[in-house]
């Protein structure tokens, strides 16, 4: 209609966007509000990769420190969640690598713990397991199979099925194109089913 539209104020940012903007400029209180509301989710993500409480807590802590340091470089406030998920995932992966190196030096990994850090196979499926699982047993089987997946498979399943993040945001969190995120999700789902079959 006219050139005025170009200079009018942009639409009011959402509350989160405003918090990100403030935190990016050094507003510590805004940062605390931002990350406090995401603590459980980030911890859950870290746990999905590391599969234990202590490491997940450490990784979450490291991730939040990294987020505070890196936040001034986050350009798009709307991408905060994907960006934070990515930092958490990377922190957990780094922690995992560090942990594996330590284990290789200090102790001989147990037979079932592969050099690539795969957790030992889960026990507990009785040989007389009925073929027709009821739902509760299915849930257990899914949990056991989940623990046997690779970390990037657990991560994407958690983001999609637990955190209900849209694939586009998952792609941002993983730093991959949307199409790649879709394929990884499919592959992780299939790997889970294969792990369940092995378990059974």
């Amino acid at each position, binding site marked *: *209609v006219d050139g005025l539209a170009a200079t009018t104020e*942009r639409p009011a940012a959402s509350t989160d966007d405003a918090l990100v903007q403030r935190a990016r400029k050094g507003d510590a209180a805004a940062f605390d509000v931002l990350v406090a509301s995401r603590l459980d989710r980030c911890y859950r993500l870290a746990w999905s990769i590391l599969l234990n409480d202590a490491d997940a807590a450490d990784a979450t802590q490291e991730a939040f420190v990294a987020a505070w340091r890196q936040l001034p470089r986050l350009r798009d406030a709307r991408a905060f969640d994907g960006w934070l998920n990515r930092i958490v995932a990377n922190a957990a992966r780094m922690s995992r690598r560090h942990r594996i190196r330590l284990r290789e030096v200090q102790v001989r990994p147990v037979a079932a713990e592969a050099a690539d850090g795969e957790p030992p196979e889960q026990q507990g499926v009785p040989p007389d397991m009925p073929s027709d699982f009821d739902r509760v047993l299915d849930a257990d089987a*899914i949990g056991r199979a989940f623990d046997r997946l690779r970390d990037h498979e657990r991560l994407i399943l958690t983001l999609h099925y637990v955190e209900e993040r849209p694939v586009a945001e998952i792609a941002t969190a993983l730093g991959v194109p949307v199409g790649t995120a879709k394929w990884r999700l499919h592959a992780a789902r299939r790997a889970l089913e294969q792990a369940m079959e092995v378990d059974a």
Partner: protein
Amino acid sequence: MNERRPTDFELAVALRAHLPVRAPADLWDAVATTVAETRQQRAWPSIVGALTDADPMVRRRSTLLVAAALLAVAFLGLVAAGALHLWQPAPFPGAHGLFAFVRQGDLYVASADGRDVVRVAHVDGSDLTTPRWSADRRWLAVQTPEPAILGLDLRSGELRRLAAGTISAWSPVDATLAYYTPGGDIALLDVERGQERVLGQEHADPDQGYPTYGGVLVWSPDGRQLAMTDAIDGALVRVDAATGARTTVVASTTCCAFRPTWSPDAGRIAYSVWSERSVPAGFWVAGADGTGIIEVRDAEGPASDPVWSPDGAWIAYRANHWEGEVRTDRLMIVRPDGRDRRRLVDRFGDIVAWSSDGLGIAYTVRDNEGDAERREVHVIRLADGSDRVLPLPRDATDLAWGLPAQNTPAIGLDLPLPSLTVPVTSDEPPVQPASGQPARGDASWGALAFRVQQGESDCYVGIQRFGGALTIVPPPDGPPPRNPPEAAPPEPGASAAPQPAGESCDFTFAPDGSAFSVTSQAHQSFSIVGNDGVVLSGPFPWHDVPTWSPAGSWVSTSGCDAAGACSASGSMIMRPDGSDRHELPGRPVWSGDEQTLAVLDRDGQLLVGGGDGSGLRPIGVFPLPAAWAPDGSEFVFVRDGDAWIARADGSQVHNLTGFDLGGVTGAWWSPDGRWIAVLQGTTMWAFSPDGSVQQRLGSHLGHPAGGWGPEWAPVWSPDSAWLAIEHDDPNAGVGGTQADVTLVHAGDWRAVRLANAWQPAWSLDGRHLAVVSSSGGGYVADVTDASGSGRTTVFAGLPYPPLGWVD
């Protein structure tokens, strides 16, 4: 052996049960302490520097850092006091969700289209009323006559008593329920933690009927305040949810300010004014601080019951219209400043909810048949007034629209939750193309590239030339391919489940088919590789998967490494051979001819310059372009729910779509410049750039929430004749991972749907379209001609490949 595959529903439930719900109680203290120490480390040198440095910029920065440090200390105090307020973004009732309602004293839910009615709660000897969905998507609260409040935990299905009292409202940001105690206190109950706080007396006087009027307590969108009607004098007041402090927004004049509703930005409150506690007199809009009060009048009759639209642009309300002694309420909408009033429905009962895209409103219609009050639930589409009835039980009462977590275990539903938006009857159903005869193609088809598994690595790329050989290109640091598969493609329909990958890479293919990028997850680096396997550049120690400019002349990345550390600007571009590598102020968006690019700077200024990033100059405050015209003379951007066009210098800005109710989320310019595809909600449109032609292509061509999410993009064929739209399979359900591709022909706009198809990729000459689909336990690549016919499987056994055409 368990042969049954878990459904999405079972998987979600099982994983939620398997993973921890909450972080350890002491983790936040540890995090806050560590982060605060980090802040002090950053802030202290700057404070010292500020004492000795006369540079005003440095002083200003130091002041900010000092303030940040002080805020951090203050925050730690809050933590120590246990006053930290955890919250989550609140979803608005949306295109996906459930109706909760009461029927004969029992609690029911139904899907968004009114079907799949399920009874979820029955209490012997007690009639349940007033269902309320929690904003955290985990609870459904319901009232008993006792009075007591029961909560249905949507995760476990457990129905438990939450408190004695009367339901008011859930906080929009967490699992806090505001309610009235039997003694008339306003109380807040954190249902997850079992913590209760009393905010103060409501001044309830049961003899006067308070607080039964209106919504009583209405949370502000940020969850920090509650609006309510003072039970003594009828004034509109705000109550601070943290302290209980009251502020009078509007003092009572005639009688009472009822049913307040907050604008989405929490800046204004609309409320009904009743003259004698039973007669509506009109509705008013006031600033949250009580300033700027305006009365919205209606010639149809006194206006009441305002409900703000999700984007704040409209208010729906009731016009109490009298014909003699018969009142027939009319459903109206109006701008918040009183302009642009429109009548939607001549006779209705109550407003149930706006759809989240703001394009429709659910409402009830009542009629009295004998003693039983019966009602219908309708949904009206605002743009054209089309209206439909939802098949909910006609004796349903107390309707509440909500957005519970997908696949809610307690309800036992694993439903495809349809859109609340109204389908337009003019939609022509897509034509399913007939299966084509196997056609392996010939050399003129070119070549397809896809991921190939080699041992434990999926970092190999297979390039299959139609009518020719299969070439396996190894990753830059990988061993040569072993046991290359045979060149001949498998039989159509054959499939093989791929092996799990030990090493994983990501690929992007240059649009001109000349090269591709390989990003190694293990090495956190990427390289550019030619189709012959020659490494053109790299490895670069960045984590991102790079993107290509439209003609493949440039590669861009965010310049971030695995730890999240980024280059100073946050954006790098270079030639595919690694030359001319330099930073840009932001992520570039190129024109089709690559002669122009735009980036957004930190202040929201759009910078436009040459295709190499030279000569960048600010042209005004714009969002990043959604797309450029092919020649770079204009760009289209999305703002305020519409698509706008501007010249490259920022001049001649005009609104292309002009939708009454906005809802635009993306725009894509055709390569020939004749059309701009626009997504509004789940509806795809095509516009001519001058706005003279506006064609609706179809609905349900995207999901604003759930499913794949909104980021998929339609792809124009190189000759602009066809638009390929990847979208959720409408039959697969929210959160499903099945997709279809709909092809729409430009000009006559006929549509063809390819079921079970993902990732459409046009051949370089535009004559063919490749898609990937699932088959058995694996994936296959299909090729059709440009019109979607002759669909033929050309490769099988693909390990989740990116699929691209190469030269």
